[in-house]
């Protein structure tokens, strides 16, 4: 059940170049949120921003929801300047999250860059359910690396400054045969997701991807946030943001 609420920022800090971690309190949203879902938010009151901005729920702790985001434009740069205590308008939790099933013996998370954002919550949930999970996290280099407190994680960097040198998908590929009956959850830039989907198809592995799109309503009313599915356009906000990778037409020209 989605809610529209005014909430207060309870903590806000810079955690890497251009990347911030924000928390706000909402017991109701915290109780309902599922990994992979997102919130649609903007600062309260009139201001330079018109539309809300979508962000994955990074983590839930008690009644706090965490958002981890990168400053890329007007909205995120404004949001990054909001001090603790500022009121925001939040719609959430929105969308379909990851589907977690006990039929898999291993739960493999692939995160590229900011794609790490929804994965902490997923890893927390898998752990709480006592399911075997493993994170592969890829980023440009050591300097861009985001904090990812998961034991046994495998790191890949494009420049080789830390961990495996190369793409996170390649790091995964090197040990793909070690997994018995895995499921893959992926979030990151389109080319990474596409590569992940191809690898999983070749190896007959179920794969769930979390997609992004520009949004207006966030609830499925405007048809603004679509991507091409194999049959028809699908709304990222309502039918997603998490999709079975087989439902998506990976050949479409896409990229925000």
């Amino acid at each position: 059940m989605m809610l529209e609420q005014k909430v207060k920022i309870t903590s806000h800090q810079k955690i890497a170049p251009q990347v911030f971690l924000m928390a706000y309190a909402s017991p109701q949203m915290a109780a309902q949120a599922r990994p992979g879902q997102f919130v649609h938010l903007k600062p309260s009151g009139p201001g330079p921003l018109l539309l809300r901005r979508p962000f994955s729920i990074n983590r839930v702790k008690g009644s706090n929801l965490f958002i981890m985001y990168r400053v890329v434009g007007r909205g995120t740069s404004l949001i990054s300047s909001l001090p603790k205590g500022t009121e925001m308008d939040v719609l959430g939790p929105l969308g379909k999250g990851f589907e977690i099933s006990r039929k898999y013996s291993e739960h493999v998370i692939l995160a590229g860059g900011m794609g790490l954002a929804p994965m902490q919550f997923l890893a927390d949930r898998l752990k709480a359910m006592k399911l075997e999970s493993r994170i592969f996290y890829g980023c440009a280099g050591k300097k861009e690396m985001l904090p990812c407190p998961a034991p046994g994680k495998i790191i890949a960097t494009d420049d080789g400054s830390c961990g495996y040198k190369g793409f996170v998908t390649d790091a995964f590929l090197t040990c793909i045969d070690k997994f018995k009956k895995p499921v893959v959850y992926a979030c990151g830039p389109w080319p990474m997701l596409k590569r992940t989907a191809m690898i999983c198809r070749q190896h007959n592995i179920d794969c769930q991807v979390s997609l992004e799109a520009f949004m207006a309503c966030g609830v499925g009313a405007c048809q603004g946030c679509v991507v091409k599915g194999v049959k028809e356009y699908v709304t990222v906000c309502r039918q997603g943001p998490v999709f079975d990778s087989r439902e998506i037409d990976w050949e479409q020209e896409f990229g925000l």
Partner: protein
Amino acid sequence: MKNIRTKNSIDLSVEIAGIKMKNPVLAASGTFGYGTEYLPLVPPGLFGAVITKTITLLPRAGNKPPRVYETPGGMLNSIGLANVGAEKFLKEKLPELLSHHPVVIVNIAGNTMEEYVELAGMLKGRPGISGIELNISCPNVKQGGVAFGSDPIQAAKLTTLAKKAADKPLIVKLSPNVADIAAIARAVEQAGADAISLINTLYGMAIDIDKQRPVLGNITGGLSGPAVKPVALYNVFKASRAVKVPVIGLGGIMSSDDAVEFMLAGASAVQIGTASFVDPSAVKEITGGLKDYCLKKGYSKVSQITGKLAV
């Protein structure tokens, strides 16, 4: 004893083209989906009427993404009338829509005049549908849409045909992308429109300077939101002075003050679109604010605001 007016005694109801509505705030086409998407957030019955997403004869996939983008004070969209098509709409969407919203107006568009006529015919005899809004003003489709809305002769011809085919009040939705809005308004009035609504979105575009490409997949789109309000207000002012039928105003209405401006300029009712994206319960604030305004000005009915502009 002095008759003391209270907020509760203000009559917000309006009647437009014979359609009775409990308040003059309507959900604009394309921004409220099929009327169910916002249900968890917006209790049904808050809007005077809900206008559906444009329905076309055959299903439409819509335009290539990205389809929406924010610009200063506004938003661009190039949805392209994505919808399930008339048959599926009537079978699957309409019954649910009607079960939640008492007053439903169906917005329609076609590629050709014949398609508009066929659609109006399909809605004939359908109980529950209170009216039809003819979309001759969508900037995001190649055929039909704004092509019919920018020429008074074509607009009139289409209105005449649709009026003949329909058994419901006909609202014609006009485009601001025209040289003389009064001429179009008069033409559709003479052709039998029971009311007119305006504005649809303005042509617009945005460019990604890194990629040196248009942001929208469709290259151009339609601009809505606060940025278009002065243009919309001007069009409502002009059009409402040119016709006798009621005018429904929209374009950038975000607050009750905005709604009052449109009514002062001549609108009998207003629609809100982009405002619902920003704040799904905007309708609540706007109807509440209209009551406050009436109270302050000593009006007992909201309809008393219409056309009160002193010029």
